[in-house]
């Protein structure tokens, strides 16, 4: 098992996930005996080709799906069975912004706080703060349809940060944006994660994005199984990054 298992915030222990009846020939194995430990404060980029089971892993960590075999623990809780125990401890940024169309930008940011019973005035203040941090002051009362794709994704990032959850799960959050907007948002996102000392799991299929975001990269091979697990030193040499990139490219093209 990689990472610092002793102090791990997220632990996947020999996890497998099959879809369809386990005993039938049609059962599809999306994750196969995957073990992974993520320490507090780590920002781990999980990288793999489309269909390699990244989103399945993501759903299991989020508690939206259960493993067929093995166990998943988040802060010591099974995120699927002890679903409510992790209320306020996990926040998710999805691939698409998933804003509620009937809520304004500020209403969407308030959503998670509302679920945590934060009083109305306080949640408004927090939502306002996060919208301004993400450059959306003046757009509080706008409905999602009036915002651009980049702005909508900013609102969804604000929504995730506003709950002050320790763990941030991101499922290719910038893949639908143009490269310039994505690049800018990525930088802002990484800065916010580090500044707020969050533990992050960042799912991506882009090597560039993984190298830019993660301070650790876990490369998956289909069916989801760790093929490469490497730490990135931010102040490291360009040569080191080049070597890592080559290694990842080799794994992904095998």
């Amino acid at each position: 098992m990689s990472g610092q298992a002793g102090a791990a915030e997220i632990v996947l222990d020999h996890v497998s996930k099959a879809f369809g009846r386990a005993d039938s020939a049609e059962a599809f194995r999306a994750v196969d005996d995957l073990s992974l430990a993520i320490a507090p404060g780590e920002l781990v980029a999980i990288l793999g080709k489309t269909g390699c089971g990244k989103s399945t892993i993501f759903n299991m960590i989020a508690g939206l799906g259960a493993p067929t075999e093995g166990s998943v623990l988040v802060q010591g809780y099974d995120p699927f069975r002890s679903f409510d125990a992790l209320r306020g401890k996990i926040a998710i940024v999805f691939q698409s912004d998933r804003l509620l169309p009937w809520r304004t930008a500020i209403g969407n940011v308030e959503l998670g706080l509302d679920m945590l019973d934060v009083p109305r005035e306080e949640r408004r203040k927090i939502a306002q703060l996060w919208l301004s941090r993400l450059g959306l002051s003046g757009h509080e009362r706008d409905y999602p349809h009036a915002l651009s794709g980049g702005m909508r994704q900013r609102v969804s990032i604000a929504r995730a940060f506003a709950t002050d959850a320790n763990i941030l799960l991101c499922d290719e959050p910038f893949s639908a944006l143009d490269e310039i907007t994505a690049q800018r948002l990525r930088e802002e996102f990484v800065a916010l994660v580090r500044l707020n000392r969050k533990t992050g799991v960042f799912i991506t299929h882009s090597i560039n994005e993984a190298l830019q975001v993660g301070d650790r990269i876990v490369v998956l091979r289909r069916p989801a199984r760790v093929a490469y697990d490497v730490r990135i030193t931010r102040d490291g040499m360009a040569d080191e990054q080049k070597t890592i990139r080559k290694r990842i490219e080799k794994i992904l093209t095998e």
Partner: protein
Amino acid sequence: MTTVVPGASVSAIGSRLRHFAELVAPFVALAAVWQIASAYFPKYLFPPLLDVFWRTLEIFTDWPQFAQVLATVGRILAGLAGAFLIGAALAILMMRSRAVDRFFAPILTFFQGVPALSWVVFAIIWFHGIEFRIFFIMVVTSLPAFTFQVLDALRGMSKDLFEMVLSFRPTRAKMFRAMVLPAILPDIMTAWKVNLGNASRVVVVAELVGATGGVGYELLMQQQQFDMAGALAWTLQLVFFVLVSQQIIALIEARVFRYRAFSERSM
């Protein structure tokens, strides 16, 4: 600097007038045909529009008569409210359990095939109390539509949005308030609009055969007296009710669904 475009306000007024004329024209044409017919046919077949107008006004201004209209409106609203509450609860159960869905879906489909008049006959045979009889008819005739409409709305809810809200691990009540209700509300409004029209027709049948008061009963009285102006005037009361209630729903929709985006081009 403000730029004033001469004639812009004139063209806006013109456009509104044209829209109003388009809206009113069919009714004016219908009234004209009726009025012409009244000149050539006996009064008991085609009474002059003025007679119908005075009769309508009389129902509005005479409390005992207007109370009959209110009784019918009350029956429609009570029946629809009952059908909606039972239908919504049933739809939630059908959504949550496939077994419940498989059990109730054929029964509701069967109920949809039973004519409203048959339910009226059954209700008269089964129940003594007039109000309960009518309530039963209204509920049983509106129930399948409400159930299927709410069920479809629940099934059509965005899985992505549902999972997004779920990711915050809300309580059931919060999930319902933040996600389920706003997501299904447009369909619920549509269901009410459709069912209001249907219910105003069914209630007349129910009152005609199984009541001693209300618009349906009054229509029966007018028929026995061959009073066409009266029959029209009582009918118009229900038409007004449907128009007013649809307008109220439209106003609520305009307020509640203001988040919706509109395309500058129409379909």
